[in-house]
Each structure stands twice: as structure tokens, then as C-alpha cells.
């Protein structure tokens, strides 16, 4: 029997967000808060800093947390949705090539690392 898909849980003292990891497109830093963008287009504020979110993901998902990649200080992305990387233009597009497309910017160095990482996946 297959074990149920692990859900990510972000609890605060007054509320709780429970979401399947594959439904998260990216999480961006918003000062002391973070903005979670879901695959259905919903956006949710989380009252945690991005570093705390990263730790929660690592603690809750363990090795399965490698689905997510921290990019610089202000972004955590779901690698499943990486659609387009342009290093000189510092452009990163996350899309499911069906219902959503999010364009964001990151440093050239980070995008180069990300591009190399994706290229390595070809040989795996």
C-alpha cells in the first residue's frame, strides 16, 4: 500500500496552512513575512521569514525537500515548475505550461548555478 503524500504544514499561534508540496509554485520573502504562491493561483501570506520556511520544509520533508531550491535571500522555488532560465536577462519563469506562468528575477550567478543544476539532471 502506498503511503499518503506528505503535506507541508505551516502553523502559527492562530492559524495553520496545510498544503501538498507539489502545489507550491514558489515562496518569496516579504520582510518578516513570506508569500506563498500556489499552483491554483491563490496567494497566501505566511507569518514566517523565508529562512524559517526553509527549515520547516527541510524538517518536515527530509530528503523529499530537494524538490525545493532556495535562490538567494528572497526566493524558494519548486524545481518542478522551472520552465525558462535566461542568465544574461536575469529572468526565471516558473510555469506548468498550462494554467500559470510567473516571471521573476534573480542574480546572474544564482541563475547560472540553477541552469547548471538543471543541465546535470539530463545526465541523471
Amino acid at each position, binding site marked *: 500500500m502506498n503511503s499518503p503524500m506528505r503535506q507541508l504544514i505551516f502553523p*502559527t*499561534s*492562530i*492559524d495553520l*496552512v496545510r498544503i501538498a508540496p507539489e502545489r507550491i509554485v514558489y515562496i518569496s520573502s*516579504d520582510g518578516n*513575512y513570506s*508569500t506563498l504562491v500556489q499552483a*491554483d*493561483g*491563490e*496567494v*497566501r*501570506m*505566511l*507569518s514566517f*521569514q*523565508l*529562512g*524559517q520556511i*526553509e*527549515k520547516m*520544509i*527541510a524538517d518536515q*520533508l*527530509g*530528503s523529499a*525537500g*530537494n*524538490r*525545493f*531550491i*532556495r*535562490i*538567494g*535571500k*528572497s526566493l*524558494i522555488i519548486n524545481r518542478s515548475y522551472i520552465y525558462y532560465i535566461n542568465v544574461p536577462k536575469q529572468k526565471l519563469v516558473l510555469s506548468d505550461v498550462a*494554467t500559470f*506562468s*510567473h*516571471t521573476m528575477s*534573480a*542574480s*546572474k*550567478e*544564482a541563475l*547560472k*548555478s*540553477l541552469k*547548471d*543544476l538543471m543541465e546535470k539532471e539530463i545526465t541523471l
Partner: protein
Amino acid sequence: MIQFEKDIEDSEIRIIGHDLVPVPDGPQPPRKPRRVWRWVIGLALLIVSALIIDLIADRVASRRTQNLYIDEPSYFEPLMESEPLVKVQQIVDHPYDSVFVGYTEIRDTMVNDIPIRIYTPHHAEMTLHLGRINRQDTTIVYVAQAADVRADNGGIVGAFVLRGEPKAWGLSKKGFCASIDGKVTIGVADNSPLFERATERGGDFFRQYPLVDRGTPIFNEPKGKAIRRAICERGGTIFMVETLAKESFYDFAQALADMGVYNAIYLVGSTAYGWAVDHQGIAHEFGEDDCYAGRRRMPKNTSYIVWRRK
């Protein structure tokens, strides 16, 4: 050991649960010195200071009261009672409730080389408003002009229902938008039963140019280019769209369809005034708020879609 939070630079990436991925081809960026020890020492000093102050204060208090309350328990007990009070205070003072605070998500994108801004209200409900809008109304998270106004007599173009009361009748435009019992419906039809239902249920209804009908862009008569706006439905989500450059009706409708919009109708574009309030409570205005200043008077039948926090 994996470090979190500030232990990453903007030039670096890290697979979560793993170490940093090295930056290829080129020097590594200089790392800031770790401030962990500074924090630990600072925290330790704070704790020691707090304990000393607490001890002194308790001794002073006990000396003052020991003659009156000789048989009272030791001074450590009241500290235990105060713990739940602190927790209640933390809950009350919690700065953010992610479930109940209404706001408008604002995102920019490009579709067919058209720069587009998308406004998606969250935890908010839409109604119509007739007449000048109160700019001090803090319940509003998004507002934009809805129906057109006739140039000849200042009447509303097309059928219009305001909180169940019909204000105008007519079918000059086939697009419609209804907000009934908290549900917003957008569509294209000569006759919509939602007009009657809005009158029966105390809802709102207005008509505008249709832009997208079940995924297909609609060709409209008006020519020329202007800032375009629309209210759209995609996958059950209602959102508003604004072009950040002047566009033709047709290009705008095509871009909406290419975005995957299922139904969309026009909102008054060009310099029509409105604003959106983001999650930080910051109002983002569009159009011109002084459009009706001076001798030019705002038509009394100017209408707005207004999204208010639930």
C-alpha cells in the same frame, strides 16, 4: 551542518536539505562574517540581566510585604500564574492573520508583448457603487469604474441593478457581470436571467463590452488604442486586468484569451480612476483622480465595481 536564514547570498542557490550549490565559473562572492556568536553572547547577557533584575525586584517586594503576609507561599509562585496571561497577550497582539485579512494581489506579466497588471482580490466581496467613491473607505481593497455613461443624457449604458434595484435597462452591450449572494458571474448573452435574479436577491448587475466568451476573444467596434481594463474569470477565480500601455480592443481581448481567461468583459479604461490595496495596506492608484476637477463635473451615474474586505 546546514545553515538557514541569512547564511545565503543573492548569488547562491541551495537545494533544500542540502549544502550550497557552488557558483560556477568565477570567484565566489565574499561571505559576510557570521554573526551567530554576537547573537548568542547578546542573548546570554540579556537573560542574566533579566534574572538579576527579577531577583532584586522580588526581594524588595517580599521585604515590603513579609510583615503582613508571613504565612504566604514563596515569591516564586506568582510567576507561575502569570504565564497564561502572556500567552493570551501574544495571541491578541499577533500582527497578521493570514486567513481573514482582505487585500488585492498585484502582479505584472507580459502576454503577446503586452505589459499587463493583474489584480486578484483575496478575502473580499464585490458590489456595485453609484456616484463618487469615498476615498477614505478603508474596507475597499479594489475599485474601478464599471459601466459606461451615455454622452447624451448622462444615463447608464446597458442594464444596471444596484442592490436589487434596477437603475437602467437596455442591451447596447452583450457582456454582463453579476454579483449575487457573494458570487460573481461574468458572461456574454443577449438576455441573462441574472438580471432578474439580481433584482430578486438584492444583488448587482451591469453590462459592458464582451471581451472573451468561453475562451474565445470577441471583436468589438470601438477603434483606437487606450489603457484597457477588464474583469475576468479563469478557473473559477475572478480578477481584474489592466494594460500598462495603450492597446486596441482586439489585441487586449486576444491577450486575455491567451492568458487562459474563460470569460471577460470590459471595464472603463483610459484615465478612469481607481485603486487597489495590497497585502501591506498600500493603495496603488491608477487613472487620474483629478479627471473631474474644475469645471468638468463627474456624471452622477458614474458606477464602480468595489471589492471590500469580508
